[in-house]
């Protein structure tokens, strides 16, 4: 019992942060699956969602602010794709990547301008921010809600991809971009819907993440973004279940390492893991073997 009581806070924190990472990692992995693009701006979209919430909640009731945050974040993700990536569709892949890095810095610096460089306190969401006790471990309710909500969203997303027409189109485009286009699939709208889903999940992730760690800075997206990217690679980039499992593993390991007293190395571990995975299993846990198309 005392072992459970001592280790439970770390495991709970790990599962919770893992769920939040998972929601962001899905955005990385889906965009990669379809465009073969690592969307470096995704972590900053997550940060922007936090900023939207901070500014909107100052003037609107929470009931209106939360849906509006989701809508604005989706709009931001959509606009980024339309303005910064779509014109570069036929350009070399490196150009799109550089464009993504550019968007990332643009968002960070816009946030820097609007906040004046200071950390903003994230509003308390009623119910979610409440404190609860489970088996003697005290935590916020959001810690318990996160993994459940994450699983519901992931299952919903999997069903969406499997059974709807857009989902089928997404799978087709990710299999073969050119052929899909020849078959009459509107590739651009498929790509847009990918960005919309990714941004929506990032917005939900940011609601959960910042409720737990209630301070938003212009660089808040940096570390979570990088770790989620690692999670996506770890699980096999392009694979949704892979990204989710990768995110949970990283979140839990990170917190257990802190619990063991090696706090200094908790981040080093994440990136060491990335290197090891790439060496042992270059395609990640659930990654598809790359087959050369002739």
């Amino acid at each position, binding site marked *: 019992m005392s072992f459970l009581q001592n280790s439970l806070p770390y495991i709970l924190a790990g599962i919770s942060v893992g769920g939040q990472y998972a929601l962001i990692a899905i955005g990385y992995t889906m965009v990669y699956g379809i465009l073969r693009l690592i969307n470096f701006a995704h972590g900053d979209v997550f940060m922007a969602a936090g900023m939207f919430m901070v500014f909107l909640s100052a003037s609107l009731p929470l009931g209106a602010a939360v849906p509006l945050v989701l809508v604005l974040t989706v709009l931001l993700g959509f606009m980024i794709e339309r303005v910064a990536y779509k014109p570069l569709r036929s350009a070399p892949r490196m150009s799109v990547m550089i464009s993504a890095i550019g968007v990332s810095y643009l968002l960070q610096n816009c946030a820097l301008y609007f906040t004046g460089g200071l950390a903003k306190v994230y509003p308390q969401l009623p119910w979610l921010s409440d404190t609860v006790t489970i088996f003697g471990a005290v*935590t*916020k309710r959001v810690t318990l809600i996160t993994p459940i909500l994450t699983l519901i969203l992931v299952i919903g997303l999997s069903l969406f991809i499997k059974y709807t027409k857009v989902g089928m189109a997404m799978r087709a485009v990710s299999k073969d971009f050119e052929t899909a286009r020849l078959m009459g699939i509107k590739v651009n709208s498929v790509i847009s819907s990918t960005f919309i889903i990714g941004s929506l999940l990032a917005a939900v992730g940011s609601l959960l993440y910042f409720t737990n760690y209630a301070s938003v800075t212009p660089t808040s997206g940096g570390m979570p973004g990088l770790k989620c990217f690692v999670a996506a690679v770890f699980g096999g980039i392009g694979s949704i279940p892979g990204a989710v499992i990768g995110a949970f593993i990283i979140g839990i390991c990170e917190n257990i390492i802190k619990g063991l007293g090696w706090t200094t190395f908790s981040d080093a571990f994440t990136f060491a893991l990335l290197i090891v995975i790439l060496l042992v299993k270059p395609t990640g846990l659930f990654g598809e073997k790359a087959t050369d198309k002739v």
Partner: protein
Amino acid sequence: MKKALALVLALTMIFALAACGGSSKSDANTVTIGVFEPASGDNGAGGKQETLGVQYANSVQPTVEIGGKTYNVVVKYVDNESSNDKAPSAAAELVNAGCSIVLGSYGSGVSIAGGPTFEAAGIPAVGITCTNPQVTEGNTYYFRICFLDPFQGTVLANYAYNELGVTKAYCLNKLGDDYSGGLVKYFIDAFEGLGGECVHEEFPDGNSDFTSYVANAKAADCGVFFSPVSTEAAQLIIDQVVAQGASFPLLAGDTWDSNVILQAAKGKDVQVTVTTFYPEGADASFDSSIKAWINGNSTNLANNGGDDTVAAVTAMGYDAYFFALAAMQKAGSTEPAKVMDALWSTEINGVTGPIALDQTNGDAIRNTAFVKQADTATGTWIALDPVTVG
């Protein structure tokens, strides 16, 4: 078409260069004081409050008489972004602006990083609230008007051991941060010297998940959580301590003496105690006039964190400005080298107490630290008894 574009770009660059050349020309009757402070990054909030003190002092006394001639004081502000990498280039910007003396910075790390630039240019710098000993050690061009971390660490350790009566302390600092790392080290030295026991951990840059650190402190049965980190991390730590229902009090150094902390702790079941340079209320006329000045301008109010609490760093910034003016008057010149010679023997009576420097490193001779506790019901500081050592 392309040639025309290239021409336009080239012309823009030439004009930009010309503009640079023009701005560095200084008027014969002005003297420039550089302010080397963070306005963004981890320490942005504190840096802005410290800068406010200088701005207010400048509005109170915009001219100075040096050697029988009246000079307009121009204050040049740069943002060192709380980053040790950016600090040298921000410092170089001040050197290029032809400053006679530089004030700052909030945060010891940036001061240590920017110090060599001032030394190479022969411009004296006066640290306002950078408390790490390494700022002035081995750099004859860096002075400071605040107390040092070995002193502050000892005061805090004594407070924890004697006043709070705890024997086990949890210490947390940011990895690679000169300020928090230094202060934690001196705290541990003093606390263990008193017979206490410390658990020491560090968190990496960019970390915002403090769950496990608080859980570690709880698991180790620590009686006090000592974490003199930046106010950004402080908000998250306070939040997490409350979320986990931890019963230990939080203890920190001068950085936490900020309304950011008051806002984070307001209405929560948590005890926060800090050591600081100036308790609000110590000089009523200074307090009331600076409050009026802060409230009179929405930018100032925003820079002070949205209310008119007088932070200790603001009072220190105010004193630093007058200390710099006094040094220049004593030197009878605006030449950096002469100002530096005069600094060693400059003395003023500031709102934060009398300021004089010692002759070894140019550190302030101060032996009193003020102790404040956050009143979580009203969101204000309650002054406790000041501690005098030696």
